[in-house]
Structures are given as structure tokens and as C-alpha cells.
């Protein structure tokens, strides 16, 4: 098992290194001179040249790449052109909103999807199953901002249980922070739960058709016991795969929800940095997100090996 983890860690490091090269190269070839963009089209050529010099944009490409990497190891992702503050600091401010939001959404989605999936699979073909599948179809089809608007209307405006938007920060107390994030998390979670419950249902149904379920039943296990003791864990692999993908999406793919709820999240940061050609912020956040996705995949791989002993063998 430790061998397996070591191999995965190594491939994680290689992936990250390749990612830095690709991110740097892509931003290098997109059109537009950052110095000119920052100063506006009316700036004199002299001013642009001075700024280029200050930003170090005149150095050779390799030097700039290496100094970017070197800075990264010291926690320095560069300075934002537009905000004037360090990129690491900007990401830090946003991640305290985005990460708890993503985790809450994932927890809510899993808490809904797994029981629903199990229930539907164990009553396959029944009216309940058909009804559940229809509801999840609806959940996938409806965009999450629409859920968001409904939730705001009902819970924030009508019942006044939670704020309708905004995030005052964790300094106001953990409870108040969670209250601000609850509605956006639910809005994000519902469509994800719909997808995940369908995945869980079909994975369980497939496993229930396996020979070893019949063996378990021949041992005298009830249908229910065979499901809990033998089918569930076997059905986890596709479920964990989808959860990994969803988590990555939830961290940065939530710009619409962030806008609906006025949340200062990572999605907004990336969006603003792109529209303002704020290269260091784009580079920094993209790299951060790539790192996050790679780490998530690493955790998913470890989970696979924990679930399935066949994957633990050395040098697969």
C-alpha cells in the first residue's frame, strides 16, 4: 500500500510540473501586452516600456518561467496587476469561502444521493424507483441558479431563516459563516445529487446482478443483507469517481452561484482576472486549481485502493 502511495505521489509531482509549463506557455502565446493593457490604450510607448521593465517582462522566457517557479516555492505567486496585492493573498482570501462552500455542497449532495441511489436500486422497476428517476432527471435538467433563486425566495425572503446573499467573513463567527453558505451550498448540491444518485443507482443495480450476490443469497443472506454487505462497497468505485469530478467542479466552477449570492469566491476572482488580463492572478489561480484537481485525483486513487484490494498490488 505504501508503495502504491509513493508511486501515486511521484506521478502527482510530475503532473504538477507539466502543468506549470503548460500554463506558462499558454499565457505566453495569448495576444495582448499586459503592460499596455494595464496602462490603457492612450499610454505613451515610453511609459509602457518602463512598466515592462518593472514587471520583468523583458527578460528571456526561460528566466521568467524559472523565477515564477522559484517564487512559487517561497509562497510567492507574483503580484496582481489590478489589485496590487500578492496573488497568494488574493487566493487565500477567496479559498476560505470557496473551499467550505465546495465541501458543504459535496457533503449535502452525497448525503442525499447515496441513500436515494440505494433506495431506488433496491426497488428497481417499482413506481418509487420510476418517480425518483423522474425527479433526478428534473434535477439534472434545471440549472442550479434557478434553484438558487427559488431557495432565496423561500428561505431568505419568505421565511427569513438565512441571509439572501453576501458573506461577512468567518470573523463574525462560524455559525454565521455557515448560515451564509448554506443556501448556495444547497443550490450547488441539488443538481450534483441528482447526477450522483443516478450513478449510485446504476452501479448498485449492476453489482446486484453479479454472481457473488447470488452466492451470498445461496448462503442464506436476505436480499437486503446481500445489498448492504456485498453490493455497496463494490458499487463505490464509479460513485467515488464522480464525486472526485464534482468536487473539482464545485471549487471553481461556481461563478454563477457566487454572483447570485454575492460571494467573494475563487470563481469570481478567476473571471475578473481573465477579463482584466491580470496575468499573474490568472497564472496563480489556474495553477492552484490544477494542483487542487491533481490532489483530489490522488485522493480518489487512494480511495480506489482502499476499496479494492486488487488495486493494491505492487507495480500495477
Amino acid at each position, binding site marked *: 500500500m505504501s508503495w502504491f502511495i509513493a508511486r501515486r505521489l*511521484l506521478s502527482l509531482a510530475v503532473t504538477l510540473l507539466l502543468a506549470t509549463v503548460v500554463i506558462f506557455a499558454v499565457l505566453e502565446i495569448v495576444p495582448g501586452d499586459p503592460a499596455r493593457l494595464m496602462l490603457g490604450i492612450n499610454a505613451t510607448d515610453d511609459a509602457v516600456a518602463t512598466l515592462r521593465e518593472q514587471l520583468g517582462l523583458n527578460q528571456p522566457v526561460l528566466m521568467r518561467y524559472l523565477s515564477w517557479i522559484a517564487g512559487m516555492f517561497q509562497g510567492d505567486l507574483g503580484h496582481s496587476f489590478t489589485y496590487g496585492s500578492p496573488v497568494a493573498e488574493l487566493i487565500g482570501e477567496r479559498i476560505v469561502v470557496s473551499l467550505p462552500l465546495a465541501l458543504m455542497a459535496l457533503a449535502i449532495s452525497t448525503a442525499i444521493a447515496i441513500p436515494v441511489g440505494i433506495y431506488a436500486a433496491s426497488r428497481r*422497476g417499482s413506481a418509487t424507483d420510476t418517480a425518483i428517476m423522474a425527479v433526478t432527471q428534473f434535477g439534472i435538467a434545471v440549472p442550479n441558479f434557478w434553484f438558487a433563486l427559488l431557495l432565496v425566495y423561500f428561505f431568505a425572503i419568505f421565511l427569513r431563516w438565512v441571509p439572501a446573499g453576501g458573506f461577512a467573513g468567518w470573523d463574525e463567527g462560524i455559525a454565521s459563516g455557515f448560515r451564509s453558505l448554506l443556501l448556495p451550498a444547497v443550490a450547488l448540491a441539488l443538481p450534483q445529487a441528482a447526477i450522483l444518485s443516478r450513478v449510485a443507482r446504476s452501479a448498485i443495480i449492476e453489482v446486484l446482478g*453479479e*454472481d*457473488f450476490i*447470488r*452466492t*451470498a*443469497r*445461496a*448462503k*442464506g*443472506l*436476505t*436480499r437486503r443483507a446481500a445489498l448492504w*454487505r*456485498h453490493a455497496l*462497497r*463494490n458499487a463505490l468505485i464509479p460513485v467515488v469517481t464522480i464525486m472526485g469530478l464534482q468536487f473539482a467542479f464545485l471549487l471553481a466552477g461556481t461563478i454563477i452561484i457566487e454572483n447570485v449570492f454575492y460571494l467573494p469566491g475563487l470563481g469570481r476572482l478567476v473571471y475578473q482576472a481573465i477579463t482584466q488580463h491580470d496575468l499573474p492572478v490568472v497564472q496563480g489561480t489556474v495553477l492552484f486549481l490544477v494542483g487542487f484537481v491533481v490532489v483530489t485525483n490522488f485522493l480518489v486513487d487512494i480511495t480506489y485502493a482502499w*476499496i*479494492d*484490494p*486488487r488495486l493494491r498490488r*505492487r*507495480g*500495477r
Partner: protein
Amino acid sequence: MALLEVDGLNLSIRGRHILKDVGFAIERGKVTGVVGESGSGKSLTALSIMQLLPHRSDLSGSIRFDGFDIAAASEREMCALRGDDIGMVFQEPMTALNPLKTVGEQVMEGIRLHTGATRKEARERAEAILEHVGLPPSQYALTRFPHELSGGQRQRVVIAMACALRPKLLIADEPTTALDVVVQARILDLLNMLVDENDMALMLISHDLGVVSDMADDIVIMRGGEIVEAGPAIPVLKNRTHPYTRQLAEASTHVPARDPDWRPADGEGKAVVSVSNLVCEYPGRRTGMFTREPPFRAVDDVSFDIGAGEIAGLVGESGCGKSTLGRSLLGLMQPSSGRIEFDGRDVTHPDSETRSEMVEFVQAVFQDPFASFNPRHKAGRLVAEPLFLRRELSAATKRDMALEALENVGMHASDLDKYAHEFSGGQRQRLAIARAVVNQPRLIIADEPVSALDVSIRAQVVDLIVELRERLDLAWLFISHDLSVVRSLCDTVMVMRSGRIVERGSAQQIHDNPREEYTRQLVAAAPDLEAVIARLGDEG
């Protein structure tokens, strides 16, 4: 009163009538063999007894087990019965165990469920039963996972699970079909031993009359969901009064007719294939970033010739390298060393031009007639596939050649426009053979071509192989683990073990007078219906 009495059993699944008025009895402590071809309803009869039928099954009739009415039992009563009084063993040991749980857990589970034993007691009992079925815990720890055991060992685990609580009835549904002959013989011995010790009744289901003939006290023969004949084994096997029983027995001992005057066109003794000192290796498992275990030698210094029009058999247990050898002759695998010659021409390391010429020389037929066709293509296109490289041929010529190939295997022009799923298993294997003969090769490599087929269809395919040899002057390399087919079909036989050919001789000599101990074991392990019938004849 018999232990199990089945009477007037009718079963429909989704409106399809599957079992028709099935009735038979199983006596205490006796072995009852249930024999039938695929679709005969033998497995569904077993699942009816277990009440483990698929969804939307409609069962009527009576099943009395030890005075208890199974057909009227509640699910709860059945759960108490299953695994305790009735155990069941299935065909496919590779998938019958949960891959995520250790062997020990899986054996203990049933024991704890039915006896309420503590973990410790259950572990002790599991250890005892595993030891008894030939998996001593000192060697095969209870903490092993199923994938760490071979097929035969897994089947022993399944048997241990089924027999852990000394059931009164054990149902074994094709328990050895997926296993090698030698392993099969050992598993059958094990079942026999358990029957004797525990005074257990055994319902042994098989498609192979040979497998049950040696063990069964009673025999039930099924076809198309009905019981054709049932009774004590000796008269059933000896008299074979029912025409279907006779047909089954003949099919499983079938010897294809040969034309005594037939000679290969090139004259006898000329080698179409000549293999010398062939070595094929698979890379070893990775042990580190840049290190691997030493390579695995699947084929180890093998030399042989196959003469024009010869049917050469290649037998051995699974993993002995016989399929790898076949693949290397087809150019699907690069040998590490040695030499392969087709008609005197070196094709060991073919360039792309030689490779396209090899297609004209050697073709293949594989085991699974269901998986080896593209489901979206029609038979005409499937059969014409090997002609793909021949750009000079027009579409019409290719179609004519495909038709000729189909007619060669006994199929018709009307079959050209059918899809693979419209054919039965036997027809699909004919289709595979048609595809192999369409470009008139000299040699066909057939890897277990009849293993997935029912005995009666197997007999037809075996006939077809001999017929095509004579009509098209074809040589065959017939790879099989089934010695009885090899014996009746092949001219010569090579016995392979751990990558080496340990013995080669005429089919008759290998069977009647094997020189090597290993060959002797193989021959002894193979179920031999003919021998059983002959013995019954002598006895009276």
C-alpha cells in the same frame, strides 16, 4: 420418502414458458446427475429449488424438501434453509466470490448467520472446513482475497462455503465446466468425498454426460425445459433406450468420419509450418521505477512441424502456454527467439508485406462465438473481412467468395444479410470458420473452438473440421484442454506443460500408451463416457 421431491414444476419468466411439468426426486445421500444442453432448463430447475429465480418469474408446482414445502415457503423460511440445509455451488468460480472480502470473511459469514457463532468460533469452523476441502490455513491464509487464488482454489472456497454447515442437499451447477481436466477431477473427487462423509445428497448439474456418468447414482436428462428420461444411472447409461439419451451419448463420444483415400495435395510429410526452438516471453512485473521481475517464459524452446492437411492437437492446462504459441504463429506476438517457417519461408519477424501475405496463409478461429463478431456488421461483411487487404478484388467477387465460404461450412446465401445475434452459438462458430477459410489459407489455428458449444453442436463442428481439411486441403492446429475431442479429431497430439512440449505422438498412442507421467495424469483425469459405458457392459 425421498429428500427432495419435485412435481409438476412449471416456470415462466416474462411470459416465456421455460420449465414444463418437471418432476423428479433426489434420494438422501445419493448423487443425482442432471444432464442437458444449454437451454434445457437445468440451471433454472436448481434456482427454483433455491427460490432464487430472476425477477418476474412465475413458478407453479410442488417442491418438497425433507417434508417442507419450498414452493409455499416464505422468503424468511427460505433464507433459513439456504446455506444451512441446502448449499449451492456455481459454474464460474472466478466471479462467484466477492472480490473485496477476504476468503475467511466469506466462509465465516454463512456460519455466523445460521449458527449465531462468535467470530472466534466461526473462524475456527471456517479454518476446519477450508482445511477439509484442501486449502489448509497454514498455506492459504484466511486473509487472502479471491484474486490471490486460482480458479480451482476459488471453487474449493465456494464448496467450503456451501458445505460448511453440512447441508442435506448440495446443488452443484456445472461446478467444473470452467476448470481444467486435472482440476476438474480433483474437484469431483472432493465432492464425492463430502457426499460420502456427510451422507449428503448431491444434485450434480452438467452439460457433459461424461462428467456425471462416473459419479451419479441417478440420472435426469433434460431438454427444452422438459425431463426426457430419469432413473438409476446404470440402466439409463447402459441401455440408452430414449433416443435423446442415445444422441447425447453418441455426440459426446463422437468420432468424425474420415475418407480413408484422402491424401494431401502436396503429398504427405511436407511441412506447412515448421517451428524451431521458439521462445515467447512476457515482460515481468514492475518492482520499481526502472526494475522488473525476470520475464515470464510462456513458450520455452518449442520445436515441431505441422504437415500439409494434418490436424495437430495441442493440449495442456490453462496457463501452459498453448494460446501464446497459437498467437505467435498468427503473428500476433513477437517471439523472443527461435524461428517460424511457413512453407519454408521465414516469418518469425515479419515486415508489413510478409504480414499481409501471412493473412493468406494462416487464419484463426477462437473460443467464444458470441464475442468474436462485430455486432453491427452483417454476416457477408464479417466473413469477407480477411479479404480486406486484397484491393484488386471487386465487391462482387468478395461477396461471391464469402458465399462460397458460407456454403463450405453448411450455411446458405440467405445467411449473408443476417447479423451475428441472429445466429445460434453453433452457427456463429460455423460463421467464424467460414471467415477463416474465405481466403483459402493453408493452416487454421483453432483455439478452444468447441469448448463453449453443446455436445451435439460440438460433434457437428468436429465433423466440419475434418470435412474442410479434406475438401480444402487445410492443416489445423487444434488447441484444446479437452482430451476426448482431441483424441477423436486429431491425427497427432502435442502435450504442453509450463511452456514446453513434453510429449508428441499420434492421438491413439497418446491416449492408449502415454510415455510421460504428466500425459498419463491428463488422460486419467479426463472424463471418459466410453470407458464407463464399456465397464457397465462388462458388468452385466
